[in-house]
């Protein structure tokens, strides 16, 4: 079960990815060891004009992942969430809204998790650097790697 699968952008699987302003969200049920990893790019699908990929947005991707892990046998009450990402890669003094999308992503994800009643137990968000994440389904450890800030388990 604990396999490593690469996660493409706007996609979700158990695996890993290279995140900038995107957020990697893991949901994990420690008892059944069922979990998922979602990679979202944007907070809100209402801003979208023509997208057909719900996994790209926090508001559509999270319910999708929740349904899937429950369908696989996870219990909603036992699920815990961990999130990482939401950086602002380029520092601009006059950063537009879209440049600060990382912060909005993190805020929105937290709000939605709260609304869905899922506990957020760890996060590593913000900053100006990229992250690669990986969820180990045998123990729920969420590994966050960076290029010059080391690697940590959250």
């Amino acid at each position, binding site marked *: 079960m604990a396999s490593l699968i690469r996660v493409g952008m706007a996609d979700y699987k158990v695996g890993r990815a290279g995140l*900038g302003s995107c957020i990697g969200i893991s949901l994990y049920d420690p008892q059944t060891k069922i979990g998922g990893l979602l990679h979202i790019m944007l907070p809100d699908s209402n801003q979208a004009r023509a997208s057909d990929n719900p996994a790209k947005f926090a508001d559509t991707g999270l319910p999708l992942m929740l349904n899937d892990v429950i369908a696989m046998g996870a219990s909603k009450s036992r699920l815990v969430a961990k999130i990482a990402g939401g950086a602002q*890669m*380029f520092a601009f003094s006059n950063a537009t809204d879209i*440049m600060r999308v990382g912060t909005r992503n993190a805020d929105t994800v937290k709000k939605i998790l709260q609304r869905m009643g899922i506990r957020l137990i760890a996060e590593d968000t913000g900053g100006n650097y990229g992250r*690669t994440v990986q969820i180990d389904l045998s123990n729920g450890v969420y590994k966050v790697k960076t*290029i010059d800030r080391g690697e940590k388990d959250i």
Partner: protein
Amino acid sequence: MIDELNLSPIQLDALREIGNVGAGNSATALSQIINKRIDMNVPKVALVPIETVPDLVGGPDTIVVGVFLRVYGRAPGNILFLLPQKSAFYLVDTLMGRPHGTTTKLDFMDESALMEIGNILSGAYLNAFFNFTHISMLPSIPALAMDMAGAILNVILVQLGQMGDQALVIETEFLAEDDGINGHFFLVPDPGSLAILIKGVGVE
């Protein structure tokens, strides 16, 4: 009405030609600065699925240096000049007159030099667009980051992500004569800008 995600072969050709001239200008500028011959490939003008864009530069985990510029004007967009880490170090050594292999980390001056290169390349590139379309496109001051390609490309893809799952990228690869430097130059028009540029060239 121009469907930006469904351009005709003539429209794609026109964009490729402008990209070609733009990249030619940029390559000439770079060549003069570092005093080496620079080869470039014919620009790719392609509609690609967003999640595959990082693969153009070696995958989302590849460490790259990215110089990012916002393009202002009637046809706004983003420019990203990506160099694999090794190429960036080589370029900096060349610019600073140091023996190749000296740089192992970018300091403030190195970053500044690379941003200036991004600036010059972008100016040369956008000039070509102006000559063809008479739409002036002005680059912002550059910003630089060294990180995973996936994370850096995120910045431009997020903006396109609002529109759809595909990105139209105009991409050129530069190669220095001694293979020390290869770089990728991306112009990614904002949703809506492409239609304006195509009208400007008159191939509606």
